[in-house]
Every structure is written in structure tokens, then in C-alpha cells.
């Protein structure tokens, strides 16, 4: 039998982990792509962060001037706090909603397909279009805050002037983000929930577990890996959110919704300070990479195994 197994693989592997894995060459297209579109630009940006350049003529070397300027810029430091806040709010609001809808959508109910399809629509629209729609919907004089003044005038919503206070502006960004992105994460959870074998539920039902207990003791643990995937995607998406901010708040009021990605854009393409913008880009890239590495380590994503062993 051993002659049928490719040589060199069984020979080298003491454990079974690498059995059947293709050689390094197979990943060359991906590595080339990654190097060309991520590593090389990152290198250029890192170099640019030590230069002063306004897009006319050639960059000139200024040493660490950009770096010290940015690190003494209160807006720069604040923009990272805002980015962290928006990301955290995104995860906290989107996860429960998409988890519940996803699990529901995985079931065999009547009208499920129709409702799921309707619910999926926001994902098909461009972020810009979504943002433009919400700007009009939230107009204090002619939009929802005016029509539903009983709700929006209650104090929680800054009297309907949602873009005038930092709290409500952040609230709007979180809400629109949720509206836009839950369908996507719902889809991930739906797929995850569909893969859970029925026998588990049947066994639990025999043991007398109700719907709630089944959800907490079967569905949730079984969706652990799915949840990690979804959260990492939210994390990365949240850290680089830009388009909704550009249309909805433009970083305002004051600088209270100026996220790092948006601040980078204003530095580069409104102020033409490409050196300073590159500093933000580098910090953002390093920060994001570290964060996803931490998540991968802490969550044990790199040791991820099937949750269905033994079934």
C-alpha cells in the first residue's frame, strides 16, 4: 500500500498534518499578487512617509519630520481612538443581529427564502448610494427626524439633528454600517448554521432541551469558527471604513468622526501632504496587521479544527 502514497511526504511527516498539502509553488500566484499589490506599495508608502511631497515635482527627503508632526497632532491620535470605537461598535452591534437572523434563515420556515432575499438587498448596493440615501432620510427638516418627531425629539437623538453631536453622528455611522453589513455576516452565519448536523438537535430534543438551550449549547459552540471569521472580517472592515464617513459626516462635527482612514484621505487628497498621509497609512497598516495577528493567536484560529469530530 505504501507504494501508492507519494514518496517524500509520508517519509518526512511524522504527524499527519501536512499530508496531501500542495507544494510551495502552488501558492506562488497568491504570493506574487500579494507582494505586488500589498508589500511593494507598502514599501513605497513607508519611504514616502520620510519625504515631503505635494504631487508636483519630486518628493524630497525630510527625515522624521512627518512622523514627529503627526505624533504631536491631536487629530491624528484622536482619529485612531475613533477608528477603534467605530470598529468595536460595529462588532458589538452587527454580531448579535447577524447571528440571530443567520440562524433563523438557516431553518426550513415558510417565506424564509423570500424574506432572506429581501434582507440581502442592502449588500447589493454601493456604499456611496447607501450613504446618500441615509443623508436624505435623516435630514432634520424633511426626513425621518421631522416625520417621527415624537421619537427623535425625545432627547436621545439630539432633537433630530443627528449630525450635529458627536454621539449621534457616531450612532448614525454605526447604524448605517449595521444596515449595510449585517446581510453579509448573516450569510456567513446561515452557511455555518446549515452545516450543523440535525442529529445534534434531535439528540438534544430527546434529552428534553428547549429551543433556547439548543441555541446556547449546540448552535453557538458549533458556530465558534464561523464567528471568528465574521469578527475578523468586521475588524478589518471597521478599521478601514472610509466611504460612509466621506458621504455621511465628512469627519464632522468638529473632528469627532474623523477616523484614521478618513484623516489619511484628507491629508493626501485635500491638503496634498502625501508625506503626512503616508505616516497614517503606515501606522494603520502596522496596527491592523498586529491586531489581526493577535486575534489569530488568541482565538486559536491557526489551530482551528473541525467542530464535528466524532459525529
Amino acid at each position, binding site marked *: 500500500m505504501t507504494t501508492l502514497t507519494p514518496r517524500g511526504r509520508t517519509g518526512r511527516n511524522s504527524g499527519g498534518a501536512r499530508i496531501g498539502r500542495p507544494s510551495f509553488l502552488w501558492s506562488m500566484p497568491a504570493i506574487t499578487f500579494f507582494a505586488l499589490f500589498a508589500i511593494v506599495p507598502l514599501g513605497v508608502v513607508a519611504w514616502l512617509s520620510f519625504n515631503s511631497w505635494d504631487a*508636483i515635482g519630486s518628493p524630497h527627503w525630510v527625515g522624521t519630520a512627518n512622523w514627529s508632526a503627526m505624533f504631536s497632532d491631536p487629530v491624528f491620535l484622536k482619529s485612531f481612538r475613533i477608528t477603534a470605537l467605530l470598529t468595536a461598535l460595529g462588532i458589538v452591534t452587527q454580531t448579535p443581529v447577524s447571528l440571530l437572523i443567520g440562524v433563523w434563515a438557516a431553518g426550513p420556515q415558510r417565506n424564509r427564502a423570500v424574506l432572506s432575499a429581501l434582507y440581502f438587498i442592502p449588500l447589493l448596493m454601493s456604499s456611496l448610494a447607501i450613504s446618500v440615501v441615509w443623508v436624505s432620510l435623516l435630514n432634520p*427638516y424633511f426626513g425621518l427626524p421631522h416625520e417621527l418627531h415624537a421619537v427623535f425629539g425625545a432627547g436621545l437623538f439630539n432633537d433630530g439633528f443627528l449630525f450635529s453631536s458627536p454621539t449621534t453622528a457616531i450612532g448614525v455611522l454605526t447604524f448605517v454600517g449595521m444596515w449595510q453589513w449585517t446581510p453579509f455576516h448573516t450569510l456567513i452565519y446561515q452557511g455555518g448554521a446549515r452545516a450543523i448536523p440535525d442529529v445534534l438537535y434531535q439528540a438534544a430534543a430527546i434529552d428534553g432541551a428547549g429551543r433556547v438551550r439548543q441555541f446556547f449549547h449546540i448552535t453557538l459552540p458549533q458556530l465558534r469558527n464561523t464567528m471568528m471569521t465574521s469578527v475578523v472580517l468586521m475588524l478589518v472592515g471597521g478599521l*478601514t471604513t472610509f466611504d460612509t464617513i466621506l458621504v455621511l459626516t465628512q469627519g464632522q462635527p468638529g473632528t469627532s468622526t474623523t477616523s484614521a482612514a478618513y484623516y489619511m484621505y484628507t491629508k493626501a487628497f485635500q491638503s496634498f501632504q502625501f508625506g503626512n498621509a503616508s505616516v497614517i497609512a503606515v501606522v494603520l497598516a502596522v496596527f491592523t496587521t498586529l491586531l489581526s495577528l493577535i486575534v489569530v493567536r488568541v482565538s486559536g484560529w491557526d489551530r482551528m479544527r473541525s467542530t464535528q469530530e466524532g459525529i
Partner: protein
Amino acid sequence: MAIFRQRLRHGAAASGAALLAGVAVAACGASASAKTTIKAKAASARPAGKITVLVYGDAQNSVEKWEVAQYNKTPEGHKVKAVFESIPGADYQTKLQTIMSTSSAPDIFFNWGGGSIEQFQKAGLLMPLNGMMKANPKLRTSFLPSILNAAKIGKNYYGIPMRGTQPVVLFYDKALLHKDGVPVPKTWAQLLADAKTLKRKGVSVPIADGGGDQWPTQMWFEYVYDRIAGPSLVTDGLAGNRKVWASAASRKALAYIKQLVQSGAFGPAKSWDSVKFTSGQTAQMMVNGISAFELMGSWDYSTIQSQGSTATGTNPPNGPGAAFVKAGKLGWTAFPSIPGGKGNNADLAGNTENYYSVLAKTRYPQAVADFLKIMYTPAFVKNELALGNLTTTKNTPTLISGPSAGWLRWQYELVNHAPHFQLSWDQAYPQTDTNTIHTAVANYFDDLNANQFIKAMEGLRPAA
């Protein structure tokens, strides 16, 4: 390599996506940088047999296309062909900035004069037009001098007016003012009193301000500073004197602005941050009687006219805004005077004009000169007027006609008699300062105090 592979396999999806998104913006800039250095060598070789005309891409390009076609019919046009190119509006300045020192730089390009061309001039990329004007004096004498001056740097002219002038004026709702017995404000005190009366009579936001866009707020500063301190404060500031912002006149202007804001004339505190001009919200407020006044560039006439319109293409607007204008409800007046101030009441602020500037390295200066001649022909003026653009040639008044003739003539006289026409601050200062100015004016309306505003403005880089 094993570690690399391990990380790649598990972390790549996440960190790779983040890296890509994180550097995408700066990467665009980086590729342009590489281009710059390569193209610097090739720049002496400009394309043969053609000149490129680059304009801001929008609904008004029909006239610019006509200019190119017109030029191509002339004998010079048979030798050197003009080619029309455009960049969609929102990206215009950014993309122009990235191609100007490359071999794809246009021979002739659209701009706003002032700070929008200053960096190019400093980098030696622009051709002074004095020589062309000497050879063909009409290129200078056909235009209003104050307009030509707005594209003058030092002793040299760098721009030929090519669209229309857009002064900022105070728009108002005639019917609402009449109903509430409120006079059209000629003085600052009257404006304050009007706002108070209107508020009492239920006009919740007497003056509409698209604070969410920031730049509309800036217009109040431009006028109050002019009326109180005279034009020299800002022109000195532009010339590099940063001390002007802390002067007594500057503090006085800031106090006047704060007084108006705190009187509630713009609605409840910070409410303006939830309103934008660009999404048609202030026009909607004017048409629906939420507001009685709006300080805005002359383009607001057509913005208000097309409010709520469902007409497409070249069809006339058909919504509530069109009915509002047709019923004669829309009024306009010059910015009120401030007694005791140094500024002339006839001074203007706004977008002076749009200009064609010329690349210093152009291979065919004669062809360029021939092309620019079109900008003072009656046919050109008529075409622009038909689009609603108020040209700044001296022959314009004789060519005005049609339903909005009254509005256009009034503006022309305003511009013609203005002792000083201040280009919007955000365009007079170099592009690199725009963001600082916008943030400073917006935050002063919200909660900055005078000292904080002054400090922000002192951070502007001198323009000259």
C-alpha cells in the same frame, strides 16, 4: 520561510485585506511619484501636431467642446489640432495636480485662479500671458480688469476668463419677508433684527447655512471681514503676514459673527452641521419657508430653481423650486453694510471666474494664443449665457437676454462696480490650506473661541 508560510496561510486573508485597504490611498500617490521622475526626462518632447485642452468635467462642457471645434476650423487649427479632455468634477484638482509635471500635462487647462494655480506657477510650470497680450491687446482689454487680476501673480497674468463669474450674494424669500413685515436688510443691525422678528413669527431657521459642507459657512467670514477690516486684511494674510488674524479688526469681525450665530439666526446651536448645501437641503429649506435667507454663490439661483425637479437632460426644471422662482418669490441683495467698518459696501466675495492657464512648455504657443481668442467672441459669450454663466467680457451686457436677464444684469453691474472682488479664501490660499480653513470656520460656528480661531488661521502657510 516556514513561519512566513504559516502566517500567510492563516493570517493572510485578514492582514492582507487590511494592508491593501490601508495603503491603497497612498499607493495611488506613490505610483504617480514614480511617473514624475521618469517623465521629467521626457518632458521636453511635447506631443507633435496637437494641443490639449483640459477642463473640469460637468454639464457645462458643451461650450468648451464648441470652442475646440471652432478653433479646429481656423487655418491654425488645420496645422495644430486642439484636443478636448475632461476630468470629472470632484477629482479635477487632485488629478490635475498629479499630471501637471508629467508629459501628459495639458497645454491649456481650467482653473480657479489664485491659490489653485499658485503652486504650479512657483514650480515654473505656467506661461505668463503678458507676451500674448502684447501681441494681441484684445486678449487683455476685452475682459473686466478686476477679473483678470484674480489670476495675476506678481506682474504677470496667468489666466484668461473662460466661464462665468459667481459672486456670493444674499438670497431671500420675498413672500416670507413681505408676509412677516420684515424689510430687506441693508445693514448688519437690520439683518439681526430681521432674524429676530422672523424667529418670533415662526420661521425656525431664519438663515439657512449648509454647515455640513463647511465651505458655505466660510462665506459669512469673507463678507464680515471685508466689511469691518477692508480687503487688505485678507490680501495681507495671503501675502504671508500671519499677524493679521490677531489684529483688532479681526477680533471685531469674529465678535460680530459670534453675535449672529448666538442670536439663533442660523437655528439652534450646531443644527447647521446636520444640513448640507450639496445635497440640496438648504435650497429645500428656502423653497419650503423653513428659512428666509441664504448667503450663497450666484449658482444658488439654479440650485433653488431645480429643487425637487424631476426633469432630465436639457428640459426646464419642473419642481417646487421652479414654481418658487417663477412666482417671483426669490429675491437677492448685496451683503449688508456694517457701519463704522473700513470695507466698501460694494466689495464682493466669491468665485471670481474660471480661467484657462497655459503650460510653460507648450510646443505651440501661437496655436494656444489663437485658441484663447475665442474667449471674447460674441458667439462664445452667447453660448455661456445660454448655460446661465455670466461671462466677464466687456461685451457681455449687450448680449444678455432671456427670462433671467434681470438677474444676470444685476450681477454684472455688481461685479463691474466692485472695488474689490475677494476670491473665496479656500481657493485664494493654496490647496494645502483648504482643510485648515474649512475646519476653522466650521468649528468657530460650533464652539471655538476667537483665540482658537486665530491660532488655527495663523497656521496657514503664506501664499506668496
